[in-house]
């Protein structure tokens, strides 16, 4: 019996010794291969960035998504890229009232601001019909009024392209290009659209101070006098929820109810983020307001008694004075983030991929 115990102890010591000494006497472990994990820093106060387990962020995935985002190869006639309607210098919105797709076909809603779009889960589009970026991406590709593309043709084009198979291999370790991988790469790139360096953020951190007008606008924005914060609160400046703000007494766009089928959702649209709002004209889901002043003025005097008017919106508006509108505009200007709008990593890749 004692012999068995001793034999067991000896074996354990030997095993432990082998384990501890492996790094010095054995061969070096192989270098890890495959795409390089990319850790995105979540800005202070933001929710954790939702990232699907089956689409982790990688350097190569983002680079591929960036190339695809700016490449008109995605459209049926190779004329329209994602960036044609989501322009980086406009916070990835479109300065046109509605976007023009292939053959100049008109869309029917204004292309939304994509600032911090990674936090929009689970409700993307003005009507919230997609629950993730991966689910959202295929919609415009096949939409007749947008890219009017056939996925089979697109995948064949990408597969026969001189560069893409290698880029997919680097990002996903396969040269077999699929719709799933195209959408994953684009989603990864869009998750890098992070904006949290506006003057507002610096004031929050104690690194800057508001002007008097900005401070008055801040006060209006975050009290029931201006009543902005319930739908556009800090830090995302959207509640990711749906509201009827009284634009029309009888809305002609069903909005959210197209998705839910609920009569009570008729005429409701998702609150857009107000980060970088100064560069995302025109405004509202249909781009009806050419300027930000017009959009703010709507809340001052404009809301009509529509069927599903949000209780937080008053018919006839909040009675804001011209001075108060000016102050709100001054505050909204502090949500503009030049570092985001001019970020070279969010512009088309150059020839060498930078």
């Amino acid at each position, binding site marked *: 019996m004692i012999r068995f115990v001793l034999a067991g102890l000896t074996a354990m010591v030997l095993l432990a010794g082998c384990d501890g000494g492996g790094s010095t006497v054995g061969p070096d472990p192989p270098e890890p291969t495959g795409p390089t994990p990319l850790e995105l820093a979540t800005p202070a106060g933001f929710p954790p960035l939702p990232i699907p387990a089956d689409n982790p962020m990688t350097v190569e995935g983002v680079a591929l998504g960036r190339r695809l985002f700016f490449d008109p190869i995605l459209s049926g006639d190779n004329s329209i890229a994602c960036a044609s309607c989501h322009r980086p210098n406009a916070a990835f919105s479109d300065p046109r009232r509605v976007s023009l797709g292939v053959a100049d076909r008109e869309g029917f809603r204004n292309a939304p601001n994509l600032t911090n779009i990674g936090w929009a889960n689970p409700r993307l589009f003005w009507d919230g019909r997609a629950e993730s970026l991966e689910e959202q991406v295929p919609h415009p590709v096949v939409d007749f009024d947008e890219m009017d593309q056939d996925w089979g043709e697109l995948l064949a084009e990408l597969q026969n392209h001189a560069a893409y198979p290698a880029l997919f291999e680097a990002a996903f370790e396969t040269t077999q290009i699929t719709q799933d991988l195209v959408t994953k790469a684009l989603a990864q790139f869009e998750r890098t659209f992070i904006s949290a360096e506006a003057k507002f953020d610096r004031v929050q951190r104690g690194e800057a101070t508001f002007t008097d007008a900005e401070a008055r606008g801040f006060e209006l924005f975050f009290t*029931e006098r201006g009543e902005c914060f319930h739908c556009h609160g800090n830090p995302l400046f959207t509640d990711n929820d749906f509201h009827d703000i009284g634009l029309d007494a009888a809305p002609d766009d069903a909005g959210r109810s197209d998705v839910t089928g*609920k009569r009570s959702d008729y005429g409701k649209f998702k609150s857009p983020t107000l980060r970088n709002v100064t560069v995302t004209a025109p405004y509202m889901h249909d781009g009806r307001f050419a300027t930000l002043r017009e959009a703010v003025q709507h809340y001052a005097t404009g809301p009509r008694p529509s069927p599903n008017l949000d209780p937080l919106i*008053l018919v006839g508006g909040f009675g804001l004075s011209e001075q108060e509108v000016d102050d709100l505009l001054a505050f909204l200007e502090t949500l503009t983030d030049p570092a985001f709008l001019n970020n070279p990593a969010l512009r088309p890749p150059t020839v060498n991929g930078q």
Partner: protein
Amino acid sequence: MRRGIFLIAALALLWAGCDSSDPIDNTSPGTVVLSFSFEVDGEPLGFDDSSFSYVNAAGDTYWVSTLRYYISDVVLYDSDGDRHEIDGFHYVDAEDASTLSYTLSDVPGGEYTAVTFFLGLDEEKNLPNSLPTTTENLNMAWPIPMGGDVWGYHHLKLEVNYINPVIPAEPPFNAHLGLDNYVTVRKLPFPETARVDANTMELTLSMNVNEWWKTPNTFVFADHPPMIMGMPPLQRLLADNAADAFTVKAVTLRD
């Protein structure tokens, strides 16, 4: 050696025998699930438009668009009348089924007869940026210019529209409670005593929305502005009304 083995086996059998035949003296912790439902004087609460309209104590016809709130610091009363407080909080959105149950783990075993809790967050919890940065919590934040540098969150958002013969276009009333105006819910007796013992006890809690407008303060919507975040005394009147807004409709035991 063989006698020793027999002795150990006999002791093990005795131990197992005691365990299975005497659960009362060996009550194990269990799970309590609070399930939230909503009614208006016995009618199920429907949302959003005038097809789901109700009449309050003042005679106002109204309907509900939003009902969101926190529950915190649940207290269970055992059959001796002793309190068992379970620290924590839970966010409820009456339109989001995923929020309509609150699971409390490792609740001490025993017989329970009643429950109470705060609707909202007390002074210890309602601090700026004290809750996890989920979208729901961020949307419940109380803004800095209205006291949000001291108090962190709305306790409640209850948003309605009502019909008034004088005010056109179905005006709103937004019962948003914050600051120290959380609700201390009265002690809610169970329909019958229930035992927690390595099982799950589900309490079906119903909120009667009409209680918000009823006692002790009969509420006439048109007597007040549509938004009251800047009116703490009015928030207090509503919070006092809601102390008896809940009842325990059912207690269900599951293995």
